[in-house]
């Protein structure tokens, strides 16, 4: 059964409205691009080989484009793009440090905060380190450009120092953390305060309740979105 357009269009419209209000549209291009492989595969598979669809629109070689498949494909693609945009808006409008600080204030453990924060901050440093190692290997005559297999071969001397160095650092990092009372049982002192108006709190609670109500209504069969 094909579902109607109300759901996907509503979700996409709501996300698009958020994009316009927040004004972060240009920063979302990479998120849309990142979703393209999934979107394209959804479009191709559903359009051409949707099971049991008989309403043929056109035939391309051994494949038949069906109206049902095309509709399902477009609706699914719309949902995926809306999802990618929603993540993009979140990333573009939310400061990681602020988010983690606030989550910690609300009860997220210091270990969880440390793991998430250090993992995210470590990515650009690992990229930097990889660049340094590649430069060092190049200086010693390693070919890291040209054909893919040559570049792949160059990964071996890159991975060794990267992984070895990271593992080597773990013990010293652990001890350095202990030297700074990381395992103290006290609740960490928050150093950031965030404005949180009554309207913002009401909006958060309202949206949360709306999600629960819609989910219950849909699953219970009381709400049938066309």
């Amino acid at each position, binding site marked *: 059964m094909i579902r109607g357009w109300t759901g996907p269009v509503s979700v996409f419209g709501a996300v698009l409205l958020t994009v316009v209000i927040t004004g972060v549209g240009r920063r979302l291009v990479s998120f849309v691009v990142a979703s393209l492989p999934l979107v394209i595969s959804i479009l191709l598979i559903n359009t051409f080989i949707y099971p049991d669809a008989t309403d043929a629109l056109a035939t391309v070689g051994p494949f038949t484009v069906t109206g049902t498949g095309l509709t399902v494909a477009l609706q699914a693609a719309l949902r995926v793009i809306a999802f990618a945009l929603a993540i993009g808006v979140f990333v573009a409008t939310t400061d990681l*440090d602020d988010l983690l600080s606030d989550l910690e204030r609300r009860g997220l453990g*210091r270990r969880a*905060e*440390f793991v998430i*924060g*250090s993992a995210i*901050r*470590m990515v650009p*440093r690992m990229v930097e380190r990889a660049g340094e190692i590649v430069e060092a290997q190049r200086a010693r005559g390693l070919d890291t450009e040209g054909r893919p297999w040559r570049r792949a071969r160059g990964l071996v001397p890159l991975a060794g120092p990267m992984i070895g160095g990271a593992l080597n*650092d773990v*013990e*010293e*990092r*652990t*001890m*350095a*953390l*202990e*030297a*700074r*009372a*990381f*395992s*103290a*049982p*006290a*609740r*960490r*002192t*928050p*150093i950031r305060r965030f404005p949180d108006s009554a309207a913002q709190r009401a909006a958060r609670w309202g949206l949360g309740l709306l999600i629960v109500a819609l989910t219950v209504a849909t699953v219970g069969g009381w709400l049938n979105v066309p």
Partner: protein
Amino acid sequence: MSVEQALVLRGVRYRYAGADRFALDGVDLVVRPGEVVGVTGPSDAGKSTLCLVAAGLAPGTIAGVLEGSVTVDGIETRDQRPHEHAQQAGVLFQNPATQLSGTSRYVWEEVAFGPRNLGLPLGDVVARVEAALAALHIGHFGERDPARLSGGQGQLVALASVLAVGPRYLVLDEPTSQLDPQGTRLVGDALAGIADTGQTGIVLVEHKTDLLAALCSRVLVLGGGRGVREGPAAEVLADAGLHDLGVEPPSAVRLRARLAAAGVSVPEQAFAEAAA
């Protein structure tokens, strides 16, 4: 009976888990507040192990067997949990990059990491951070990204981060080994400033005997996990047998030895003034 205000190691032996021999084999050391005691020796002499034991990380964090006694102001480190000991004896390692938490955007936040872990009131956190930055004259680093500092600057921030936890003793494991001469000078000046306050006792493990000569009142030379020389820095570092123990004597001592070999006599006073 009054409790000795000092970091004291008595007959300390330490064997890492799975190892056959003791990395430390009967070491004695006493460091009082306001004192800088240097520790040197060849590779594999047990210097880093001494740091781990003195800082309460071995056997707490690093598995192994500890014999003898390690006390801080009369309290056995065995009886303390790591965060309690961190407030008594702070430790700094060689690599500035691994000392920092990696979770802070600004130096100020990085230095606040320890006091925040202790759950101190915000006012106390601010006071400790400001005091630690001021003690090392790096208040102007506050808004910089810790990941974008030079080696020497990074080591100063790591030192400030340890100081902010409030230890009475600092255990420094070759804090300048990965630094260039400028970075070494930065850290050396900072340590001299801390020592001058008379509040903090420092154990400084170093290969750079010039730094030990400039900062330390006493020096312990380790060899094979045992103390092989100990005494006033001027005496130990001028010992003719130092080289045979695998330790490069300070440049002033080497110069004097060469001048003596060439038949040139220079009064002792000249070297003392040059060192000062």
